[in-house]
């Protein structure tokens, strides 16, 4: 099997793949922590979040394959696309860094995804609405878990405050992409299928401000936002992630596992 391209994907397939890619790439990142977390409870918690996200990605890939109608399954999408075929936002592919980076990345993402899934639950597309209904419950836990840690680290020791501040500075420039929409998205919004993400910004900012206030953190001034992931132009990191993730499928093409 060769590398799979998705350039001519329909708006619905592309929309579904973008959601799936976000979930898989972040789930993969979190799974890298397993066995190496700061405490046993966090080994278990991070694996939990990773499992939720990988589960979301599987439901979404399966649906994308059905909507596409080319007979592709979840693994074809996950294992046979090169980096340019992945359409996740840049935020989720950023390396784990220290625990502060992992937590801040999760918080910024989950604070967006919780209201996102809530809106998508009302989608005119029943499959997406059903996936959203399950994911919403999971995202609520992901947000609570990460927000509690942002507060603990922000209001913990001098070192933890410094680290979480630094993590925020590393990641803030990737938050703008969460609110981007292109023509494919707008077409689906008009049909009542997709979520108008620009409308989610006030709630996201409220959540961020509220948690940062408790953590003693300041929302950074607006900076030049990085973009590209949703269009297939990624950071340096995704290629390494995929080399790891896809190794067996690439080394033994066509085998089933």
């Amino acid at each position: 099997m060769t590398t799979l391209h998705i350039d001519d994907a329909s708006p619905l397939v592309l929309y579904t793949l973008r959601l799936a890619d976000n979930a898989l790439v972040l789930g993969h990142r979190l799974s890298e922590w397993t066995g190496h977390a700061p405490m046993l409870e966090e080994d278990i918690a991070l694996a939990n979040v990773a499992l939720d996200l990988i589960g979301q990605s599987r439901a979404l890939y399966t649906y994308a394959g059905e909507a596409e109608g080319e007979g592709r399954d979840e693994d074809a999408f996950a294992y046979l696309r090169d980096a340019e075929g992945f359409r996740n936002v840049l935020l989720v592919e950023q390396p784990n860094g220290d625990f502060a980076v992992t937590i801040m990345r999760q918080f910024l993402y989950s604070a967006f995804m919780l209201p996102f899934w809530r809106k998508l639950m009302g989608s005119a597309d029943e499959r997406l609405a059903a996936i959203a209904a399950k994911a919403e419950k999971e995202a609520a836990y992901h947000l609570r878990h990460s927000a509690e840690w942002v507060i603990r680290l922000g209001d913990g020791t001098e070192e933890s405050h410094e680290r979480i501040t630094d993590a925020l500075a590393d990641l803030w420039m990737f938050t703008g992409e969460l609110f981007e929409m292109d023509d494919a998205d707008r077409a689906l919004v008009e049909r009542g299928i997709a979520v108008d993400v620009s409308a989610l910004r006030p709630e996201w900012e409220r959540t961020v401000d509220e948690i940062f206030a408790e953590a003693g953190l300041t929302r950074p001034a607006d900076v030049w936002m990085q973009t590209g992931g949703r269009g297939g132009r990624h950071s340096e990191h995704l290629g390494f992630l995929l080399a790891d993730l896809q190794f067996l499928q690439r080394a033994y093409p066509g085998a089933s596992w």
Partner: protein
Amino acid sequence: MYTQALNNLDIDTTGDDAALEARFQARVDDEQRIEPNDWMPEAYRKTLVRQIAQHAHSEIVGMLPEGNWITRAPSLRRKAALLAKVQDEGGHGLYLYAAAETLGKSREEMVEELLSGKAKYSSIFNYPTLTWADIGAIGWLVDGAAIMNQIPLCRCSYGPYSRAMIRVCKEESFHQRQGYELMLSLAKGTPEQKEMAQDALNRWWWPSLMMFGPPDGESIHSGKSMAWKIKRFSNDDLRQKFIDATVPQAHFLGLELPDPDLKFNEETGHWEVGEIDWEEFQQVVAGNGPCNRQRIKQRRTAHENGAWVREAATAYADKRRARKAAAAAAEAKEAA
């Protein structure tokens, strides 16, 4: 996952009150469970703490060789299954540490002993996971051997441990089936996949047999543990049970066991294996296995890298408590 803990007990029964001990033993003989607040001989407590802690450590160290393959699992279904399995192991570690804590030793102390090299864990995890088939072999053989060892522990005389083991065994048996199913898909797969499965069996078979500990003749201190109903079957009995269950499974996979002397004894109805290399076992237990240093270093690194996080969590909890107390004091003052 399991440890050889049963075989190196440090028993000292001097100074215990004879009447109390007689009553304790009568309860054990009567198959009653001993609970944390019950009187127990000091040596019983020590033995259990050591065994449960070693068991917990094994779960934690065992996360590393399998964790190696989470990011490289060849399908999303396999990835989720492996991640969930390794997460289960973390969970086992957590409630085993909790069971040991009921005997008066803190988790911090136990972790410290693991990281300093003072405490042992199951030697099987000092072998490397080189291919994806190793994930199947570990589930099938290592978890299979663990179950043989652990089922009797569900009836262990110490209540918290026996209850923990009931839950652990349920999950382990699920892992074992999953591992076997993984091996089956490789054995029935491409020639390369089958080769991978055979290679994994070659490397994991003997270490799995060693998991039951030294032969009965060389296993010291088993007597007391048997009397206390911590241990119920001898090493060799459990090993034989495992061999008899596993050999036909290997044949069903179409794989060959790496033992030219393996034969079925028609008279006894048992499979007989060739000589186990106990020198290798002793060496790996003593710290000279392929991954002993690597595994402990990884645990130490995770622990050290996480220190600032644990400190932050403690500092935050202290601040919160102080603020609450201050607020309550202010309120009381206002009321007065």
